[in-house]
């Protein structure tokens, strides 16, 4: 366990192992996500109440789930940065934050467009929507903070503190629909109960969720590799890698 932990601290080892996982993540991610989306858009039955507008769920739920999960991963990485000073944890936070921000924008946007024909409004300041907007500001704060310091160590610590502290927003998002009166309905997917949907609807939704998680895995590893290359550019292994293969080899490892 500790040996694995130390190995993970080695940027060169990480670069290699990430390159081995990435093609699988990208391949299966695209396969699952596209299968779920096509199934949901064209083959799943329409909803008795909302008709076809509910088909937005097949991207709304995956992006909203992932936006929250990514933040939780960043908070865990923040603890690792603060306690164990592992550089890769900080690399992860920097690599994941922009992706998380875009996912949050997508969740908010698809929710707004879905809200108009079903609720009758694009936006309402209820607890679920507001706490999700706060999540977006947390992501933007982390991105801004990461660029605000020129010293890498200071920036890493500041970003880690914000990532850790902001995680209290996650249970608020999750339980907002139960703790308070909201316009947003409670969760369809719960860990402990059966989904409140027929299988022809939740199976494609599950595929889309799993697919987007895998695609995030690819994006996170690829972006971490880039950050590792930038930070380790003075080391011999990066110089050899760049001299030997140049851009093309690095790109093919990425895809």
């Amino acid at each position: 366990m500790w040996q694995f932990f130390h190995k993970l601290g080695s940027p060169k080892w990480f670069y290699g192992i990430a390159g081995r996982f990435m093609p699988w993540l990208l391949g299966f991610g695209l396969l699952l996500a596209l299968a779920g989306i096509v199934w949901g858009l064209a083959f799943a039955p329409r909803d008795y109440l909302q008709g076809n507008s509910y088909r937005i769920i097949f991207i709304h739920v995956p992006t909203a789930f992932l936006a929250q999960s990514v933040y939780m991963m960043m908070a865990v990485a923040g603890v690792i940065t603060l306690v164990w000073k592992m550089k890769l944890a900080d690399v992860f936070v920097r690599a994941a934050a922009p992706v998380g921000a875009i996912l949050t924008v997508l969740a908010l946007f698809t929710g707004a467009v879905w809200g108009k024909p079903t609720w009758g409004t694009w936006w309402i300041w209820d607890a679920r929507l507001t706490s999700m907007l706060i999540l977006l500001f947390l992501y933007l704060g982390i991105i801004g903070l990461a660029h605000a310091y020129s010293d890498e160590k200071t920036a890493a610590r500041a970003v880690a503190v914000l990532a850790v502290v902001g995680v209290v927003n996650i249970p608020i998002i999750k339980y907002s629909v139960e703790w308070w009166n909201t316009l947003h309905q409670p969760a369809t997917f719960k860990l402990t109960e059966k989904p409140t949907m027929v299988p022809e609807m939740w199976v494609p939704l599950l595929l889309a969720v799993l697919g987007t998680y895998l695609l995030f895995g690819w994006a996170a590893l690829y972006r971490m590799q880039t950050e590792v290359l930038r930070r380790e550019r003075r080391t011999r292994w990066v110089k050899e890698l760049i001299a030997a293969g140049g851009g093309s080899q690095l790109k093919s490892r990425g895809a």
Partner: protein
Amino acid sequence: MAFDSFSAFVVMGGHGPYVWTCYGVFFLLVALIAWLSIRDRRQVVRSQQREQAMVSSGQADTARRARAGGGFQRIPTTQNESISKS
């Protein structure tokens, strides 16, 4: 297929604009993530390639001399003695 025809699929019972806007923006922003990530990688690799090319051309002189001189130069040290003494 949940729809009778392709046009019914596009119209989505009147909800087409909402559904297709969402999916359009989704694919656009996913593509944006991919584009930003690949652009960052290219920038890092290119600037490093340039720097390495510059360093190697600047060092060509020194390198040639070093090769002529048989590579590394041996520098006598007194480390072992000082350790054994102390």
